[in-house]
């Protein structure tokens, strides 16, 4: 059945144009054809035709010589490496072994990049064809790597690296959280969001006044002198204003200091933040997340705890959309009899 459909698809279209074409060819075939170049004669106008250069590639007349050359090479590589692996009894692989192969995530050049490479516009089927072969080669590379064929692995890698996208790193790291890096002064820079607000938060540890100088070692050893630890305080500046000026509501203020309380880090860090967008609740919520992330950046041991109490979590709740036929998201118009 399938083969029938395929045959049907392969048959050339028959119609008026096809008939006309067959007619012209038959008319030409009646005169005997003589290649003027081989005969060395001049054409009827008396001009001697120069011999055409022999095409460098057998694919010259496909008009996509470069593409088909590469394709042939890749296919050849597939054939050879398959034969090699078969010879070494690494192919065919049982399913369990195939599943246990270490992953080797490839990111191939996109159609546009490959078009530039091949100097021809790649249609989707042609691109798919290349990618299919590349994926196969990638699988062979995985097998070679695990199966202990370093030579084959090196060769395959050399071939495949030509088709790897230049943006591989960026694409693979997409969607993954970037680790916060402290800068030269020990500052963290984190971002917090809630509703439509966002907060950029910079945190720096408070400099501890040196307490050890005032205490004599004897007193420390004997424990006679009560150790008077210096107390430091946290200053939080929001848009360059003290916290109490920016947030008049106590609930907002308490929300902001919550991560510090949970971490027991009140007085340990100074905070500078820029908040944009939204209202007071959103802005204070954004600050909470930003500060929580900053604390985790300074003290990675707290990461699990902060994740469990959902301090570092981006609150996903947003304004519920308005619906047609309703006054607001949920509110209904009052019912009127007529």
């Amino acid at each position, binding site marked *: 059945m399938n083969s029938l459909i395929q045959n049907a698809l392969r048959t050339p279209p028959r119609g008026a144009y096809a008939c006309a074409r067959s007619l012209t060819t038959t008319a030409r075939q009646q005169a005997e054809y003589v290649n003027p170049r081989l005969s060395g004669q001049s054409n009827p106008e008396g001009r001697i035709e120069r011999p055409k250069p022999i095409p460098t590639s057998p694919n010259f007349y496909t008009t996509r010589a470069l593409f088909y050359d590469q394709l042939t090479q890749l296919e050849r590589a597939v054939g050879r490496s398959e034969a090699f692996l078969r010879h070494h009894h690494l192919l065919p692989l049982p399913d369990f072994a195939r599943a246990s192969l270490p992953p080797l995530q490839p990111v191939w050049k996109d159609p546009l990049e490959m078009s530039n490479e091949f100097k021809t516009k790649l249609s989707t089927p042609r691109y798919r064809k290349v990618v299919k072969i590349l994926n196969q080669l990638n699988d062979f590379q995985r097998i070679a790597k695990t199966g202990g064929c370093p030579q084959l692995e090196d060769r395959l890698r050399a071939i495949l690296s030509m088709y790897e996208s230049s943006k591989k790193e960026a694409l693979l790291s997409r969607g993954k959280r970037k680790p916060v890096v402290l800068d030269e002064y020990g500052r963290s820079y984190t971002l917090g969001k809630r509703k439509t607000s966002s907060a950029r938060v910079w945190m720096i540890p408070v400099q501890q006044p040196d307490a050890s100088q005032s205490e004599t070692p004897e007193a420390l050893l004997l424990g006679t002198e009560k150790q008077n630890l210096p*107390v430091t*305080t*946290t*200053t*939080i500046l929001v848009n360059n204003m*003290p*916290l*109490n*000026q920016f947030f*008049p509501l*106590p*609930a907002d*203020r*308490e929300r*902001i*200091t919550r991560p*510090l*309380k949970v971490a*027991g880090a*009140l*007085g340990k860090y100074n905070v500078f933040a820029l908040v944009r967008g939204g209202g007071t609740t959103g802005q204070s919520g954004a600050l909470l997340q930003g500060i929580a992330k900053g604390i985790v950046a300074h003290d990675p041991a707290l990461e699990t705890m902060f994740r469990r109490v959902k301090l570092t979590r981006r609150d996903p709740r947003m304004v519920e959309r308005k619906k047609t036929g309703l006054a607001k998201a949920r509110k209904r118009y009052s019912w009127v009899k007529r």
Partner: protein
Amino acid sequence: MSLISSISRPGPSTSLSRLLKPQFSLESRRYAAGEAGPVGKAGYLQKLGSAQKSKMRKKLPMYKALPASQLDRPILVSNKPQFDPPVFTPAAIKAATAVGQPFVINPKDNDPMKCFGIPRKLWLEFKLLSRPYTVVREVTKDIIQLLEDAKQSSSANTRVVFTGRPGCGKSFLLLQAVESCAQQNWVVIYIPRAVDLVNSTTSYAYDIRTQTYLQPWYSFQTIQRMLTVNKEAFTKIKLVEDLVLEKSVLAKGTTLDQVIEAALAERGVSVAQAPVYLEAVMKALEAQTQYPVILAIDDMQTLYGKTAYRDPHFQAIHSYHLSLPRMLMEFASGKRSFQKGAVLGAISASQTTHPIPLELRDALDLHNENYRIASPYEKRDKVLVEYAKGLKNMAVPEKLTLAEAIGVFEIWKEQQVFGREKFFYDEAFMGKYTESGGNARDFVWKGLLATLDT
């Protein structure tokens, strides 16, 4: 219950019934009786009417503690541990350890706090605390030292205005200064709510002779209170010139207490002449050198702003055309001065109806990011510029230091307004200090008293 229940009257003509909305008392019945309604169903209709009225009422009535005699239910009986901090005295303040320590003010019967009253916010705070507690700050010591130095020189040399953001402790500082002066035998004149001088709440009358509007009732109350507070000093200070009244003359050399008592004796007649009495008393105080005089004015910026008083043509009356604000401004500007003494003032930055006028801001050099940007081409009242000349700005620190905040925390903790057994007091303290950014009012009102994590 409260030692300061008698302090609640801040200035002349301001009785509690005006300040406080009627509560469950006779007064509310009196208000309700004024409403029209059929006599037969009076009870029902009046109830309705009063309910409607209470809906329209915008402000909540001010907090008033129940008298101790009514707190006999077991749930209301507290077993508070006695909190007895040292008494606020000039000697105690001077101690090196005094900074950040809570003190209690023990007002005598003739204490300025009781007689002149105190600003509304402090009054409410002391109501909640049941006793007037206060914490000594670094700046308190500075002020005490300033007054010590001012004792020997003219008040024209010491004219200081406390400035700072709302809630940084200006009024408390002024009260501390007044208290310490009262305990050191100064003559004290304390105006805790200067806004009452300009908001058209006291009677006024035009006087052709001085071409000003006199405020007889406020003047009368002022001299009365001055006598109560400075009784001892007034027995020794004498009139410097004859006091000519409508029907009598008080001769030069009469002591001030006799003068004021004469006014009090004929209350009906002398209220109208109270401004004349006050003027004579002030002149006598200016001339004498026995006692240093402190004139302390809270809400000072209201004197330099617009008044709510109107003349018969409904034109606004300038504050310098009102007798009392004019007199206060004359002392503040150094046009008049006590031979020994000081003039202290405090602006109240949280008074939204009375912002700090431009003339005063220029004089105090208040042109920072906390204020509206003022153009040099903006119009200034030349008279007010004169009256504001020479005032010195004393910026009260924006933040409580950690030691001072601990003192404040201790007072409220001892009152048991928050916390319980095994409460993390350290964390609460650090949290509230951080949240309030060190601002004193926010630390207490929006921190300790507003918190939900008790």
